[in-house]
């Protein structure tokens, strides 16, 4: 064998090391993939496809009376800690000079009080106001899943974005990634938390708690892949919008009756 110098020795050994590492990894992943494929094929061939369910959520801001029943129901249903919200209601008040006042006292947990007259700021007489309930948008191109380093955020086959709280390490990347501010770190558990569209209820055929208690049907939930469902009809018959469409996250929570002042 040819005599080697130090440089050659090092390059060769490091090279072999890297190759072994990559190869080992490859073997692992391929084995896994093969297994996946097998189980997938098995499940596909065994039972025929059940009826397809894609959940959708529609908020009709023209109907909302700002009573906060949804906020209280949500907190009770999901044990949301004091001071945090999975859903909340904002009141938008538009003034003639183009200014917008947004308030949400305690997330509207106790409802609203009349807007105080605000003489110093001379905003004038409000000409337009309404309530906008907010909740997780369950985006199609969601940033929160993309940033999760441990695979704790995921999308189910119904299109619901969920958090695996056993896997979550509480790094809060997703909290910062969400442009709608719907995620928070649960101080009791130390992990991320957010609206699940009451996945434990909706998979049993119940409505989400906030929809259940809404007295004026401002919140509508249903299966959007069924063209005869209430929500599909409403989506067809109305002009619907989403929040912050310019961000391109493609939210699945739609709104009726928003205007450009709402953020």
């Amino acid at each position, binding site marked *: 064998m040819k005599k080697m110098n130090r440089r050659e020795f090092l390059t060769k050994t490091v090279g*072999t090391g890297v190759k072994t590492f990559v190869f080992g990894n490859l073997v692992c992943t391929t084995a896994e993939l093969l297994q996946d494929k097998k189980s997938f094929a098995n499940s596909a061939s065994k039972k025929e496809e059940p009826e397809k369910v894609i959940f959708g959520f529609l908020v009709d801001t023209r109907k909302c009376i700002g*009573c906060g029943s949804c906020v209280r129901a949500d907190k009770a249903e999901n044990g949301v800690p004091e001071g945090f919200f999975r859903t909340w209601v904002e009141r938008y008040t538009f003034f003639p000079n183009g200014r917008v006042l947004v308030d949400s006292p305690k997330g509207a947990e106790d409802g609203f009080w009349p807007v105080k007259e605000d003489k110093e700021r001379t905003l004038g007489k409000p000409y337009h106001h309404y309530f906008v309930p907010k909740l997780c948008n369950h985006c199609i191109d969601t940033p929160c899943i993309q940033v999760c380093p441990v695979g704790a955020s995921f999308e189910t086959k119904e299109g619901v974005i969920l958090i695996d709280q056993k896997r979550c390490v509480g790094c809060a990347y997703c909290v910062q990634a969400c442009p709608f501010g719907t995620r928070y770190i649960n101080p009791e558990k130390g992990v991320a938390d957010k609206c699940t569209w009451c996945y434990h209820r909706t998979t049993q055929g119940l409505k989400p708690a906030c929809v259940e208690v809404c007295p004026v049907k401002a919140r509508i939930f249903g299966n959007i892949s069924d063209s005869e469902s209430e929500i599909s009809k409403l989506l067809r018959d109305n002009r619907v919008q989403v929040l912050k469409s310019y961000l391109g996250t493609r939210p699945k929570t739609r709104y009726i009756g928003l205007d450009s002042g709402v953020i």
Partner: protein
Amino acid sequence: MKFEKHYGRLLGVLIGVAACFVYARSILVPKDFGKLGHFRASAIDEIKALPVQHVGADKCKDCHNYEYEQWSGPKSLHKQKVKCEACHGPGGHHIAKMNGEPIEEDPRRDLKVPDSMVVCSRCHLKLTGRPEGQPMLADLNKHMTEPDGTKKEKCVSCHNPHTQSVYP
């Protein structure tokens, strides 16, 4: 020549490292991770199994038939739109307790309405921004006073919360 035996050792070390990696990975990555996607498949079932708190008005019917009949009757104020649990809070805990299941006492899960003023005015106070159709009270003080001048403390002194608008 000189390096020959070093190769062997190095190979041994590398195989050791790779084995450690595979072993550590098999421990750290949960069994069902990646079954349905880049996540733990059993997390779905764990979330599905969370307890349901809002059970719906039909569940109250069995034990509170009187209130249920009033509330669903033709003279009802809220014509089935305002559910029991919107005023009373979620009933899951209450029902479990009444069925004699061993369950912790939780004062927050009490269904009693302590102050009808608070509950009713959340929905019936006149607010800027409320849509037209909603029955709203601009002046609570005036509304709470009988024509003869006596002032009432509670909404339920004059209204039956479950049925016809005003007590005769």
